[in-house]
């Protein structure tokens, strides 16, 4: 910080004006979103340790019962003392499974898809975009043509083909969705690399004698990583929705494994009698997606104001 000398007698004492800290700039919505995401992540991680019934335990006597109802009948093998009655916090779904449990286990699927998919896109797409933007010329044309081809390919058809031929499991879904995010990441990376590599400090780096690899990693990457990360956060929410859509169509994790989209789909038959079966997972999906978007927005705001200072 540039110091401002107020009193000529104070020769060595400088008064520096500290700018608003980054944490303050982020705002309330950012912190509320962070709390929600932390809660979801935390419960998804420790789901196995929580005192919950199995996510595929079926209570035939309590089908689509509303939130707050209790388990009425004892399990058959209860010969010992009377177990405590279990309260279905969010009720049960059409097959009598605890929605709260399924919500928490379903969060695992949503989070895995939502977080790993953008990482694939970020790594592969970011690298391709950087190479295209830095070297230009034929390599650029080639990479961008490949990206356009992927963009033009209908994603749903690809996903259907993958589940049909390779098999329907979480890994395949993640890889397929990750593959589909590569073009957009490479476009963001390329656009940012184009502007950064035109800056003079890239030439200055070359003047020092650095090679291309070093310039890409040390000079260009740190300058484009923030926009890429902000974009990745938007892709996170987009991918959570995409996974929800896929499981709604029955293309994601196979049944009985819970996923939010699948849970919403299950409730669509009984929307008029027991709307909570669809509504509660939809709410969880909504809040999570909203949180990721708000976090992305807040971070983008911070980056933009930083650009203003330069």
């Amino acid at each position, binding site marked *: 910080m540039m110091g401002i000398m107020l009193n000529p007698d104070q020769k060595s004492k400088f008064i520096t004006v500290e700018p608003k800290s980054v944490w303050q700039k982020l705002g309330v919505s950012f912190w509320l979103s962070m709390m929600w995401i932390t809660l979801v992540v935390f419960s998804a991680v420790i789901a196995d340790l929580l005192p919950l019934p199995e996510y595929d335990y079926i209570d035939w006597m309590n089908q689509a019962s509303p939130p707050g109802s209790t388990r009425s009948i004892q399990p058959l093998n209860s010969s010992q003392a009377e177990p405590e009655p279990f309260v279905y916090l969010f009720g049960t779904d059409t097959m009598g499974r605890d929605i709260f449990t399924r919500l928490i286990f379903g969060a695992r699927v949503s989070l895995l898809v939502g977080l790993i998919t953008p990482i694939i896109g970020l790594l592969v797409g970011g690298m391709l975009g950087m190479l295209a933007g830095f070297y230009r*010329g034929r390599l650029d044309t080639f990479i961008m043509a490949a990206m356009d081809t992927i963009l033009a390919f209908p994603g749903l058809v690809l996903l259907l083909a993958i589940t049909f031929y390779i098999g329907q499991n979480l890994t395949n879904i993640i890889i397929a969705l990750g593959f589909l995010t590569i073009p957009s990441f490479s476009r963001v990376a390329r656009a940012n690399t184009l502007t950064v590599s035109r800056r*003079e*400090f890239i030439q200055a*780096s070359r*003047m*020092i004698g650095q090679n291309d690899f070093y310039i890409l990693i*040390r000079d260009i990457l740190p300058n484009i990583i923030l926009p890429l990360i902000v974009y990745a956060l938007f892709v996170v929410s987009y991918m959570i929705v995409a996974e929800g859509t896929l499981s709604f169509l029955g293309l994601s994790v196979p049944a009985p494994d819970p996923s939010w989209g699948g849970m919403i789909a299950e409730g669509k038959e009984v929307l008029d009698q027991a709307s909570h079966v669809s509504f509660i997972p939809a709410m969880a999906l909504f809040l999570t997606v909203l949180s990721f978007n708000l976090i992305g927005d807040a971070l983008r705001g911070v980056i933009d104001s930083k650009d203003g200072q330069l």
Partner: protein
Amino acid sequence: MIRRPAGLPLLSIQDLEITIATDHGIIRVVNHISFDLHRGRTLGIVGESGSGKSILSKSILKLLPKNAQVSCKSRIFFDGLELNKMSSKTLNNVRGRRIAMIFQDPMSSLNPVMTIGNQIAESLIYHFRMKKNRAQNRSVGLLKSVGIANPEQRVRQYPHQLSGGLCQRVAIAIALACEPELLIADEPTTALDVTVQADILDLLTQRQAEKNMSMILITHDLGVAAGRADDIIVMYAGRIVEQAPAGQLFSTMRMPYTQALMNSIPRLENPPHTKQNFIKGQSPDLTNLPGGCSFAPRCSRVRKRCTRKEPPLSFDTRQDHLFACWYPVCGAN
């Protein structure tokens, strides 16, 4: 060619020709330029915007944009090495280590997301394989040597926290980190405040004298070159139009263009409301250069011959004073 000091020149450029392919056709931005630069001497290159000065300086370190092409007949010798025939890999041992460069805009020639300490340490680590700690300590010393107060704090700051003048000092520290033999300063003061300009130029000349560096000082300001350069080259539309030792050039300029440049410098002793002299017209369109002398359309002494045939770079009375003009200005200025 100026060959007063004995021995081989440090930098020798022979018949340099650079073309750039654009949408409007091929333009010849640097046209048959030759000069020598000896150790410890300063060469000033003066010219308007677009006269090819920056391209010329960037071609020495192969920092040209991709659409620029150096002619295969051109030769750039640096201490016996033919720079323009070297691969980028071997050239990287010369870049920053033996030839360094300072750019025009200090704000954009520093990496905004790296602390300035790291930016100075970078080339030390790269060229001298220095340990990170030692390089960091050294960069504090370097910042001090370019006249930055409390360098210990400055090394941890980012470029946006410094003023333009300080940034240019940092850029000089980076350039001088490996004690190069040749420093190319590409309009080092153009983006700076007038009061800071003199400081930066004094710093450069002082450091140059200490290390016995050679320097190429590129500027569009004759005044900047006047006090600091040993020899001066005046460029116009990609050509050398006048080349002479600084004293000689300022006492007797032969080329009308140099004289016009000189006359358009505002003078303090002028009475108020004196009409400012200027060179009429625009610098020529390089895609469509006029036949003959390219300065002819703007020249006050133009005659028929000027528009027909291009004047060669030649000398008459003094061997070290070259100029490209059919009807040179005579006598003292």
